[in-house]
C-alpha cells in the first residue's frame, strides 16, 4: 500500500492522539472497531469575539494509516477555526491532499461523522 509523505508524517508522528483532560470538552465518535474503523474527537471551544473557536482537539482512532493521519491533521488544523460542524477541508479535498485511494472514501466519511458528532455534542 502506498502512503503519501503527508500520510506518513501524520501517521508516524501523531501529535494530537489522546483525549482532552481538564475543563469540559465536547466528545463525539463514529464507526466501530468491529467494522474496522472507529474515530473519536474531543473538542474544546472558547469564545473569540463574537465567534466560538476551537481551542484544543484530540482524537482516538482505530483504523488504517489514512484514517489516523487524517484525524491527526484535522485535530491540528482545526485549532483557531470557528467551531462549526464542518471539516477544515471537504473529504474529497482531504482525499486529494493525502493521496488516498478512492475506495477508502467511506473511511474518511467516518472521520467526518466523528468530527460533526463532537462539534455538535453538548459541552
Amino acid at each position, binding site marked *: *500500500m502506498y*502512503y503519501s509523505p503527508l500520510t506518513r508524517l501524520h*501517521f*508516524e508522528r*501523531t501529535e494530537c*492522539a*489522546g*483525549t482532552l483532560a481538564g475543563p469540559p470538552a465536547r466528545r463525539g465518535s463514529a464507526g466501530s*472497531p*468491529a467494522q*474496522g*474503523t*472507529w474515530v*473519536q474527537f474531543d473538542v474544546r471551544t472558547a469564545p473569540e469575539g463574537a465567534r466560538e473557536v476551537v481551542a484544543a482537539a484530540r482524537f*482516538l*482512532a*482505530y*483504523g*488504517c*494509516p489514512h484514517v*489516523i493521519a487524517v484525524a491527526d491533521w484535522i485535530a491540528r488544523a482545526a485549532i483557531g477555526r470557528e467551531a462549526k460542524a464542518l471539516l477544515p477541508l471537504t473529504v474529497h479535498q482531504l482525499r486529494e491532499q493525502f493521496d488516498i*485511494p478512492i*475506495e*477508502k*472514501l*467511506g*473511511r474518511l466519511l467516518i472521520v467526518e461523522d466523528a468530527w460533526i458528532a463532537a462539534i455538535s455534542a453538548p459541552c
Partner: protein
Amino acid sequence: MANPCAGIAMRESVRAAPAYFDYAASTPVDARVAARMAECLTAEGEFGNPGSDHDYGAAAAARVARARVQVAASVGALPDEIIFTSGATEANNLALFGLANYYAAAGRHIVTVRTEHKAVLDPCRELERRGWRVTYLVPDRNGLLDCAQVAAALQPDTVLVSVMHVNNEIGVIQDLAAIAGVCAEHGAVRLHVDAAQSMGKQPLDFDSLGIDLLSLSAHKAYGPKGVGALVVSRKRGVQLQALQFGGGQERNLRSGTVPTHQVVGMGAAFELAAALREEEVKRIAALRERLWQGIGALAGVLRNGSAQHSVAHVLNVSFEGVEGESLLAAVRATIAVSTGSACTSATGEPSYVLRALGRDERLAESSLRFSLGRFSTAEDVDVAIATVIAAVTRLRRIGGWSARSAGA
C-alpha cells in the same frame, strides 16, 4: 547458538534494510546454489538445450539429470518421478487438473481443506465450474485435520484428496501418514500433497508415506524462483493428462525447454536443505521461541495454529486492539513481515486461513506472520520484538484500546 551459515550473512551489504522475516514467502538464493546456477548460463558453461543431440546438449542434460537425482533424493522419490515445472502453483494445477481430467470417467469428486493455498483452492473452484464436486474440510481451531474427517468425506466417486503438508500461513503440519492410510483404504483415491513449505523444514518420504502426487517449490528453500516440481508416483501407477503441449519434455507431461540453470539451482538447493535441515531447524526453533517469548509478553497477543504440530520457522500471531494495515505500516521500516490479512483495500479480506480456524474478522486482520530462515539472527529477532512492542503499544494508545477494553 551457532549459525551454520555464518559468513554468508544476507544483509552484509544492505545493513540499513529491514530485517527479513518473510522466508515463507520467499528465500534468497543461497550463494552456493547461485554458483551452481551460474555454471549453466554463459558460453563457458552448460548453456545448451538439454534436449539437443550434441555435446552442448548432452552436458546440459547431464546437469539436469543430476538435479533430478538431487530433488528426488531429498523427498524419497525416484528421479524418473520428478516432473520439473515453473513452480508449485503449476505443479498444483498439473496435479489437480491433470488427474481430474484423466480419471474423469472414474469419478468427479475431490476432497480438500479450506486452509489450502490458493494454488489448490482456485483450481478446485475451476473444477467445480467444470462439473466436479469438491468437499472443503474445516480443520480444528489449531489448523489440524483429523483423518476421520477425510474418511467421512470420501464418496464412491472420489478420485482425489489434496492436503498441504505445512501450512504457509500458520506453519502447522498435517499428519500425512494417517491421511494417506485413509486414502489407501478407500482404494481408488489418489493423494496429492502440496509440500511447497516443507523442504528443509520437515522430513518427507514420498514413497514410504504412500503419496501419489507431491508439489515442490525451489524458492522457498534457497533456490531460484520460477522452478518447482511435481513428483508423480510411478510405483503407484498414477496417470495424468498433460495441460500443455509442445516438445514432449518431462515425460510428455510438461512440454517446454527444461531451464537448465533453474533446475540445477533447485537440485543444489534441495540437497543443501536436506543436509542442513536438522541443524537449521534446531537453531531456528530457538530463535522463534525467543521471538514468541518477547512478543508474547504483551497483553492481548494470540498465537495462531498449533504450537506443538508446527514447523520451526513460522510464528503467526494476532494482536487485539490493533488494526492490521496500520500495524504492518508501523513496522515495515524496520522488519519485513507478512500480514495474515489481505486487507489493504476497503473491500477488506482478512486471512481465510485464520477465519477457517475460527478467529474473528478483526483478529484475523490484525495478525502478523513471522517466518525465519537460514540467515536470521538473534539480533534480527531482538529488533523485531522491540519494533512490534513499540508499534502495538502506540497503535493501542491511539485507538484507545485499553480504555475501551476496560469498558470506557
